[in-house]
């Protein structure tokens, strides 16, 4: 699992590559905390190359969402793959998070 991030005009994009599971979850929290602390509270997690996610990974996303919201911003997810979509539905997390088609779309409306 690898995370990298890039600060764009109106948001920061965190790329997650590989398996976002219980081992990678704490790492994702750290990366997003770092991004938010650096001043970008509008965060998109790009999941285009995340081929597997478990409940711990989703839990980390919720933790990151909380961190971004508390900093006055938001966290959004983009480009989910079929397995991730399934996990979102299984846990009803699709009721909470909107999966945007691409990272650019995520903050497209504001």
């Amino acid at each position: 699992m690898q995370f990298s991030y890039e600060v764009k005009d109106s948001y920061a994009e965190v790329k997650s590559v590989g398996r976002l599971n219980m081992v990678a979850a704490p790492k994702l929290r750290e990366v997003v905390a770092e991004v938010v602390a650096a001043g970008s509270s509008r965060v998109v997690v790009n999941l285009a190359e995340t081929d597997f996610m478990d409940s711990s990974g989703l839990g980390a996303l919720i933790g990151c969402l909380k961190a971004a919201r508390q900093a006055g911003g938001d966290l959004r997810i983009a480009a989910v793959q079929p397995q991730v979509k399934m996990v979102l539905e299984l846990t009803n997390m699709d009721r909470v998070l909107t999966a945007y088609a691409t990272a650019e779309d995520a903050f497209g409306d504001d």
Partner: protein
Amino acid sequence: MTRFWTRLIVVLTVILGVNYVAWRWMASLNWDAWWIAVPLVLAETYSLIDVMLFGLTVWNIKFRKPPPPAPDTATVDVFITTYNEPLDLVMTTALAAKNITWPHSTWILDDGDRPEMRQLAESNGIGYVTRGADWTPDMPRHAKAGNLNNALMVTSGEYLLILDADQIPEPDILDKTLGYFNDDLVALVQTPQYFINVPADDPLGSQAPLFYGPIQQGKDGWNAAFFCGSNAILRREALMQLGLVGYVKATEKSIKRALAASKQAIKKARRSPEAENPLVEQMLNDVEAATESAQKELQDGASLSEITYRVRRKVDDAVRTLVAADFSALQSDLEEIAAMELAHVGESGVTTVASDAVDRMSGRDWSPLGALESVHAVLDAISVERTDEAQPIMPLATISVTEDMATAMRLHGLGWKSVYHHEILANGLAPEDIKTMLTQRLRWAQGTMQVLLRENPLVQRRLKWGQRLMYFSTMWTYLSGFAAVIYFAAPIIYLTLGILPVNSISFDFFIRFIPFMVVNQLLFLVAGHGIPTWRGQQYSLALFPTWIKACTTAARNVWFGRPLGFAVTPKARQSGGPSWSLIRPQIIVAVLLAVALIVGLIRLLAGMSEPLGTLVNVAWVAFDLVVLSVLVKAVLYKGFVPESGPEDVGPERPEERNADAV
């Protein structure tokens, strides 16, 4: 074979029990004394249902074979939960945990946040976890469930072995249990809790051979083996899934509730003195518009993060615009003043409003909106951060002080399986004095009743009927306090007043009652393979004040939000002499029983009552007194003294150790 005999006796018990209780209802009630006749027949019906539920439990008794080996990639975190137990006790367990052969990480979860504990853990290469920064003092802590939930967020093992601070694990505990998880649907493996500081006659009824035996094996047969808080292995994925599902549910509920309440809150705010300010009035209009459109979006199925984000955005924008307008008026006033008093301004030039003032004053707490508490509360609740909990994801259930039972029930509700592994793989310490024992039993009973009242298993649609009844069965047993009172009262009433709750004590009575009683005892004998169950039967009646208190306090807690009076069970023996005051109600009952015995005999000699009725009731009183006598032993118990020197780790109980080989 055992299963066949057990089932045969279950069938007989049900037939004979229904035969007796149906006759009691239809043909035996003494309506002249309905005030004792009806309670007694209700108590007997309660007991019949109790034994039928026990019968149902052992009907599917499951004797498991050892599981296949687990893949050696399986990663495990061993959690040792502690709050205030002595450091050496915790370290003994932690070092034993460190010696578990399967590769793992050991963690001490210290809710007492003790620096000495941390130091000891670190110097022994053991992980140490305390509550993180999110657990601010205004957040509910949820005791052990909170402690575990906190640790789940900072560790990453695939499986979790949970141990109470006094439960010393065997090195092979994981080798013998992890293999069950080869079945992808297994979320929990529970092993027995066994106590090494208990003498053979077990005066405090600490060992639970019936529960960690036929009852758990029976529940296992219905895929309803319980999680009992310690000596259990859990699958992280299952717990996290539970946490997520719970998070979504709680968030959705809180947003719906807040949106529904917003109209009322805004109305209320409009009547407050602050609302006379046109600025505030405009804000309230904007907030109302925002919540109304959020309600519509919710109906249209928009995601909760979008809805809450938009509400917050709109409200913040409105507040900002208005605060900024206010400030620009202020700024022009300042400029006018400066123009009039130009001579006095000097070097610094025109006074300006600080550039971040608009931001500061637009913050939730400082803006005029902050003064309107009702609106403030609604806006806080329209969020996805779960602001009322320290962390959004709470995998272990927090609806009860027995988080274990509630968690297991929810796991079963999500379709996960559980396993009961009938082999002692950890040795623990039981309370050594009656006070601690009573505190512990009260807590278990309270927790169980909380689950019943908050999430009644009978109406959990996602549980199978067998599972619903297995949970309900355990809850049902905790109602025994009320039945016990009636069982004590009925013979006292007959012997002292001569009032019989039945029409007559006749052949009809004995022919129905005795076979039921015999087969009932036989059921315990066969289902339990002869393990000692008498101690348990005594305590289920003798602790009636504890069970009743548990029911009433749990009901007050769930329905009226009153505290339970929660106490952590102390692991060290409480000092002081015999505490007779702890069993005052039972002493009063025993005295009443003894008085009734004497009065009954006098009435018999005076020819005021019939011999057969007196005999039956005297026997009944004798039984009650024998039941209560266990408490004398318990109060006088001075703690555990090893029978044969300090090297002996305690009495072995082969019949408890491995009943798999049937």
